[in-house]
């Protein structure tokens, strides 16, 4: 029998819908759903989203590490042993010897349950890979505008008159969003792209600013310097809706375009032009992603952009906004669910957990903020974290300084990995639990524009694989917690009770309104919120805080031994650690090979020809791939897509505020492989 089931793309944070066609319960093809935020459009990853589902490599049985390698064991036995070991470690070393990695690839319900388990066991050591992508956004926006989310909707993009796209390359990472961006351009919007590479997004720029790696604050400050000097800021907005403008004036005073030119390498006249174009457009949106956030000054970078948007009055109105663009299908939701060490669901601080404790029916919850992913890895290395439970993450490939991560995992007394494939990380696990993939389960997911959508089940999981939420329910019960949820919908309903932004978002509504609901949604008859900060900001006094920041150079700069700068990026046809996309033939055929971009002048100096094998070496490791000679990248810079293991090279030094690693800047040297 043929069936069409509405699907939700498991890849990026855009939130695209499509139909999954099944024949006798087996997936056959993706069909176009003429609606949703994607308006029927799809990128190559969405089009191949069925390819990995029935792959032979799927995990289908729980596995336990023994002397003879991994052996199959029953679910009952696996859950029992894991629960006993977790409790034993907690009782012996205290709850903070436990760590949990939740997942931006899993549903809201699953993230909710995992953080609940952690907290009921007495620890806030729960985090997920937003740490590696938008932790600095969460910290920077919380301090400035009070809400760590995209302030407007995709629909605001075509209404803007200027788009400032900073460290973000939607042409590769959110191809479907380019539709909205080009529509803005059709409507006469100017496009300013800030990126050290001439990305495919920069093809569409009116002004492209190829700054030196890690000099974002100097550039933003110089733009604000011009805007203030030329009195182009929105006086009414600044005085009625913000605080801290005077301090900003003082800080940006010294950042003349000429001074910034020396730091950023961008000609002063271009900085002026960009500043004037941005401030005089009348309606503007700032979009950013990893090129801005993954720096030791990541939080500062975000604050600088927020300041820039605020002084121009580009927040809370039609065609304006601060848009941190989310990379994973549920990174927004995982944050909203409190899979973060310092906040409970709905961004309620752990230091003030009374309300949540009451709903959960417990006396108290741990009130000290827990450890972040890099800190958990470090503490595991030092032997203080004894047990790590990983749901749907692959830190061995996704985290910086791979060698260090592997050493840390080997130290653990208990490593549990719950995933759909035997990832590079799962190889080090004591127990591997086979999970259901997106099309094999139900639950809600929150896209970049705060849009919560229901994911319908299309097919059965292979053999014994189970939805993550069911695994967590079993684990919760085995740990002695009151986890008697009958269905995933029960969890959705509990989320509505606990997270204020999700108050009116019920499973019934989500299944009926398949195009989703944008939070905040305070009641069941509320239509959802297209735009945040319309009348006041989510800060205690309702005013936005303008927080000036000073430029600080990246942690590693080129020297004699490592004369090049190294940065990482992604390609459209692969996704992160390639666990899923790497198993699609249509994708690997087109995007199957690691390479590094190098400028023709540098290649000539080093005697490297296009397609030759090179070795890139940093203080942390070395990596071999083919050279791709291109003017897209500036002199002195090497760019590598990170899907194929390039994080052996990257720097694990952290932004002190958000604890996000500086993936985007390292010093390296390049050798020809003979």
């Amino acid at each position: 029998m043929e069936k069409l089931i509405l699907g939700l793309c498991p890849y990026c944070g855009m939130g695209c819908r499509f139909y999954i066609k099944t024949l006798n319960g087996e997936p056959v093809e993706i069909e176009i759903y003429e609606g949703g935020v994607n308006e029927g459009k799809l990128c190559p990853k969405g089009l191949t989203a069925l390819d990995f589902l029935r792959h032979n490599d799927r995990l289908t049985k729980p596995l336990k590490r023994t002397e003879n390698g991994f052996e199959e064991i029953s679910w009952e036995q696996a859950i029992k042993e894991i629960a006993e070991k977790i409790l034993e470690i907690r009782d012996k070393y205290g709850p903070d010897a436990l760590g949990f990695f939740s997942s931006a690839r899993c549903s809201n319900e699953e993230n909710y349950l995992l953080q609940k388990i952690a907290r009921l066991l007495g620890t806030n050591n729960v985090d997920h890979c937003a740490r590696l992508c938008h932790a600095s956004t969460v910290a920077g926006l919380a301090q400035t505008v009070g809400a760590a989310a995209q302030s407007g909707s995709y629909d605001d993009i075509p209404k803007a008159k200027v788009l400032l796209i900073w460290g973000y390359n939607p042409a590769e990472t959110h191809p479907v969003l380019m539709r909205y961006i080009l529509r803005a351009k059709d409507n006469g919007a100017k496009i300013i792209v800030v990126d050290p590479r001439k990305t495919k997004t920069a093809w569409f720029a009116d002004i492209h600013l190829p700054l030196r790696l890690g000099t974002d604050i100097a550039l933003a400050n110089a733009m604000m310097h011009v805007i203030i000097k030329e009195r182009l800021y929105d006086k009414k907005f600044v005085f009625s809706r913000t605080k801290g403008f005077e301090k900003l004036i003082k800080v940006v005073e010294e950042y003349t375009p000429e001074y910034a030119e020396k730091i950023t390498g961008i000609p002063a006249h271009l900085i002026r032009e960009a500043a004037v174009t941005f401030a005089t457009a009348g309606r503007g949106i700032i979009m950013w992603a990893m090129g801005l956030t993954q720096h030791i000054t990541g939080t500062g970078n975000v604050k600088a952009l927020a300041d820039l948007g605020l002084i121009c009055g580009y927040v809370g109105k039609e065609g304006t906004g601060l848009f941190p663009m989310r990379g994973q299908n549920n990174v927004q939701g995982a944050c909203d669910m409190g899979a973060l060490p310092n906040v409970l669901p709905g961004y309620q601080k752990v230091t003030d957990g009374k309300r949540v404790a009451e709903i959960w029916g417990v006396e108290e919850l741990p009130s000290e903020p827990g450890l972040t992913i890099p800190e958990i890895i470090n503490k595991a290395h030092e032997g203080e974290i004894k047990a790590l439970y990983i749901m749907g993450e692959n830190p061995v490939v996704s985290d910086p300084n791979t060698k260090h991560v592997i050493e840390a995992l080997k130290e653990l007394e208990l490593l549990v990995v719950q995933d759909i494939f035997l990832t590079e990380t799962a190889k080090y696990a004591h127990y591997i639990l086979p999970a259901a993939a997106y099309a094999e389960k139900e639950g809600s997911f929150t896209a970049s524009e705060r849009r919560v959508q229901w994911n319908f089940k299309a097919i059965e999981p292979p053999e014994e694989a189970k939805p993550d939420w069911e695994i967590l329910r079993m684990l919760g019960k085995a740990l002695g917690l009151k986890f008697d949820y009958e269905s995933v919908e029960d969890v959705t309903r509990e989320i509505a009770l606990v997270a204020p932004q999700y108050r009116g978002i019920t499973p019934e509504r989500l299944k009926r309104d398949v195009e989703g609901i944008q939070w905040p949604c305070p009641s069941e008859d509320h239509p959802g919120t297209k735009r945040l900060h319309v009348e006041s900001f989510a800060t205690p006094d309702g005013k936005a805080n303008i927080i000036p920041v000073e430029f600080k150079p990246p942690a590693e700069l080129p020297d004699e031994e490592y004369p090049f700068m190294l940065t990482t990026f992604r390609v459209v046809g692969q996704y992160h650690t390639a666990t899923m996309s790497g198993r699609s033939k249509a994708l690997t055929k087109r995007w199957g090979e690691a390479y590094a971009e190098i400028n023709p002048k540098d290649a000539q100096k080093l005697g490297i020809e296009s397609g030759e094998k090179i070795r890139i070496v940093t203080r942390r490791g070395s990596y071999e791939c083919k050279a791709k000679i291109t003017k897209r990248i500036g002199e002195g810079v090497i760019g590598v897509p990170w899907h194929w293991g390039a994080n052996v090279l990257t720097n694990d030094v952290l932004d002190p505020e958000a604890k996000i690693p500086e993936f985007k800047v390292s010093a390296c040297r390049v050798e020809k492989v003979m």
Partner: protein
Amino acid sequence: MKLFINLGRCIACKACEVACEKEHGISFISVYEFEDMAVPLNCRHCEKAPCIEVCPTNAIKRDGDGAVIINEEKCIGCYMCSAVCPYAIPIVDPIKELAVKCNLCADRRKEGNLPLCASVCPTDALVFGEINEIMEEKRKRKAERIVEAQRKAIEKIALFG
């Protein structure tokens, strides 16, 4: 109806290639990426199609929507269509060893659907429609930009005299 290439909108995402390959087993559209732009290229279904003219067995015909279609029953694999095509489109089908090319998704059109590549293309670099309508739409947008620029200029004169 034509499958029109909106030059300058392609982001080289290759969704069209992947979609075509899923539908037909081979991709009949190719995306060429350069340093500063990309061009998707498939059969142009030419009005005066040289391939139709040259085919010795009359294997190539035009259907009701104007699509140029190779009839594999009649094709003898001489590749004269490939030789004369101004865009180097007809290729060898690796299994049938006959000339094949884009048929504007004939099966999909029969069911009232768009050609798949145009249906998925995120940026409308590929659109399926009447050329005159597509041009009218584009021209209107150009006119809007002229008006906008004009208004700005007038505003400036009013401000600074």
